[in-house]
């Protein structure tokens, strides 16, 4: 039996693949002092990959390949766009960072590209196997990249912890998948959906679903599967941390979204409550732990755990079907997109700030705004946005999150209330950073302008992020297009 392959549909992936190979080739040929070309190539490649993506988006018909196990529809495109853009920004952030510190550049970009490729594949996957492989390709390289600062014991530990828990979660995930397969005899989502339509009381199915949730829960670092996150975030090179907290988290969410909504819509009465629980736990524990952080990266780590909790909230509402299902969907997606933008921005600020202050300790940032008001404004923008203060993008994310659960259902409304209280708690530690930067008087010495000046690429990254953050905040319809993707998913699932 032959399968015709639509290469245009696969174009983005292919472009990335080509880029990877080129990067490798360059890395072998180039001398150390102009290895930065690999970076340029990577950046260019990701940018290039956006072109076919655009074309696909424009003529936008749904391409389904291999018995519908690999589908390129609006949803997939939106997410691929998200992965590519955020990847692009991460490259921009990495450029100077990697170059300055005698890291292995070529391999770095190669692995990062591989991870991105994985996320692209996963976005299109409509089949457990493809999904699984995609996820592995996303995380595999990251295990290594987390330890990229080879000389640093922290970095080693970061990668080790990440790895061990990673494989554990993979094993559990796989066990769940195997059960699904056993119950349905299928790995293709729509088929699974049909098979499991009236199975929701089946213990095995429950176990399978929960095991898979655990697998994904690890990727999105939801409590209680979050333990790796803070240490790893702190140890890994900052751009990788950014990537972890945005792309790989997003990857986890995408996996969760498509599996839950497409493969197991019938069992929503199992996973919705489960995710309700995870959401509540993640928000609360994430926020509470963040209150005590003195290191800005660790703080962001816990914040990203809490944010994951917020993103999980809409899932809990999925138990009720119909328009609200799609709504809940859109909410998570929009939150993902906005979160990606502002969190990347925040990490870019962290890189630039650390360069200037020479420390990741919040106390060390005291009075930064007095010497560099631009930095101050950027910090304020991104952290207030994370806190969800209008008119910055974050508010709309939270707004959508609330909106998705304020359906007349006590359980979800209770979750909304928990979320509301958490939103207030969260503000406190975001404000802690802003307080240090704006309100406190300088304590430490700041390194002199010349070398501390953020690199052009970083500036570009910051510019992109801040522009998006404010634009979305003021005119959220920009982000609202994501909802159409949600429709595709909710209905076509």
């Amino acid at each position, binding site marked *: *039996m*032959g*399968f015709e392959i639509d290469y245009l549909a696969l174009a983005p992936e292919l472009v990335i*693949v080509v880029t*990877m190979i080129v990067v*490798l080739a360059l890395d072998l040929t180039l*001398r*150390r002092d102009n290895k930065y070309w690999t970076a340029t190539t990577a950046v260019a490649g990701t940018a290039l990959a956006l072109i076919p993506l655009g074309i696909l988006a424009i003529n936008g018909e749904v391409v389904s*390949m*291999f*018995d519908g*196990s*690999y589908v390129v529809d609006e949803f997939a495109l939106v997410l691929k766009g998200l992965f590519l853009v955020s990847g692009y920004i991460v490259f921009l952030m990495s450029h100077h960072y990697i170059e300055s510190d005698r890291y*292995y550049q070529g*391999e770095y970009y*190669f*692995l990062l590209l*591989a991870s991105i*490729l*994985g996320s692209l*594949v996963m976005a299109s996957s409509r089949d457990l*196997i*493809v999904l*699984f*492989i*995609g996820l*592995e*390709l996303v995380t*595999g*390289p990251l295990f*290594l*990249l987390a*330890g*990229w600062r*080879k*000389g640093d014991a922290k970095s080693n530990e970061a*990668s080790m912890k990440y790895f061990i828990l990673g494989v554990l979660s993979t094993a559990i995930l796989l*066990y769940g998948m195997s*059960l699904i397969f*056993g*119950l349905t005899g299928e790995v293709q989502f729509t088929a699974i959906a049909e098979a499991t339509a009236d199975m929701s009381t*089946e*213990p*095995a*199915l*429950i*176990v399978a679903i929960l095991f898979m949730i655990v697998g994904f829960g690890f990727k999105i670092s939801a409590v209680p599967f979050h333990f790796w996150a803070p240490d790893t975030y702190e140890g890994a090179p900052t751009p990788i941390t950014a990537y972890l907290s945005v792309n790989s988290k997003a990857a986890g969410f995408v996996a969760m979204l498509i599996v839950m909504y497409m493969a197991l819509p019938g069992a929503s009465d199992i996973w919705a409550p489960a995710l309700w629980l995870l959401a509540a736990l993640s928000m609360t524990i994430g926020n509470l732990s963040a209150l005590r952080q003195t290191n800005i990266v660790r703080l962001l780590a816990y914040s990203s755990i809490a944010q994951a909790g917020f993103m999980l909230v809409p899932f809990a509402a999925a138990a009720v079907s119909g328009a609200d299902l799609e709504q809940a969907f859109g909410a998570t997606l929009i939150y993902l997109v906005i979160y990606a933008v502002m969190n990347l921005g925040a990490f870019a600020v962290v890189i630039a700030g650390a360069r200037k202050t020479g420390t990741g300790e919040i106390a060390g940032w005291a009075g930064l705004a007095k010497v560099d008001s631009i930095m101050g404004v950027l910090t304020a923008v991104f952290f207030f946005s994370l806190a969800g203060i209008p008119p910055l993008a974050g508010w709309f994310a939270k707004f959508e999150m609330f909106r998705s659960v304020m359906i007349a259902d006590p359980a979800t409304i209770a979750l909304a209330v928990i979320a509301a209280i958490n939103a207030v708690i969260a503000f406190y530690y975001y404000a802690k950073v802003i307080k240090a930067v704006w309100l406190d008087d300088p304590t430490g010495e700041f390194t002199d302008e010349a070398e501390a000046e953020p690199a052009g690429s970083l500036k570009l990254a910051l510019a992109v992020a801040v522009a998006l953050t404010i634009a979305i905040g003021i005119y959220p319809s920009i982000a609202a297009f994501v909802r159409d993707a949600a429709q595709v998913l909710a209905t076509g699932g």
Partner: protein
Amino acid sequence: MSVTDWISEPVNWAFLAIGLAVLFCGFRVVTAKNVVHAALYLVGALAGTAGLFLLLSAEFVAWVLVLVYIGAVIVLFLFGIMITRAPTGLDEGLDGDRKLWPAMLSIALFVVMAWTSIEAFGSNEVVTTGSPTSTDLLGESLLGRFVIPFEVVSFVLLAALIGGITIARRDLTPAEEEERASV
């Protein structure tokens, strides 16, 4: 089906034998006081698994398992063990000092998993056609419907390879950099 007619099937004797062996090996893997022994017990467990696969008429997979694991992975392991100078003799320090909770956790886990699968699959028969799954069928679906994961997984391996090397290799000192560059 009752225990008696289950026991009456000879193939189940084979299963029992292999299964128990696998279990024993598995148990030793996690308890052995000697790293190398542990690795070797894993070999045993895998070999047993391969046997079970044969019972289940999955020849190809069985051989893949043997080749990949026993042929490659274990060797890798032994290398790792040796390079990292892990003690080859007895060693008390391999395990954490607290075993109680892990034990209870895993037992509970086992109970849950076993119970659910019994609930789910009761006494479904395993269809043993005797004729092993044809390799070309596997080939077709691998290069057909599953070509994408097939391609992608190669990247997983490639990434692991390159990344692994980079991570594991010894960094050159600046001096060596110089000389490397001058050549």
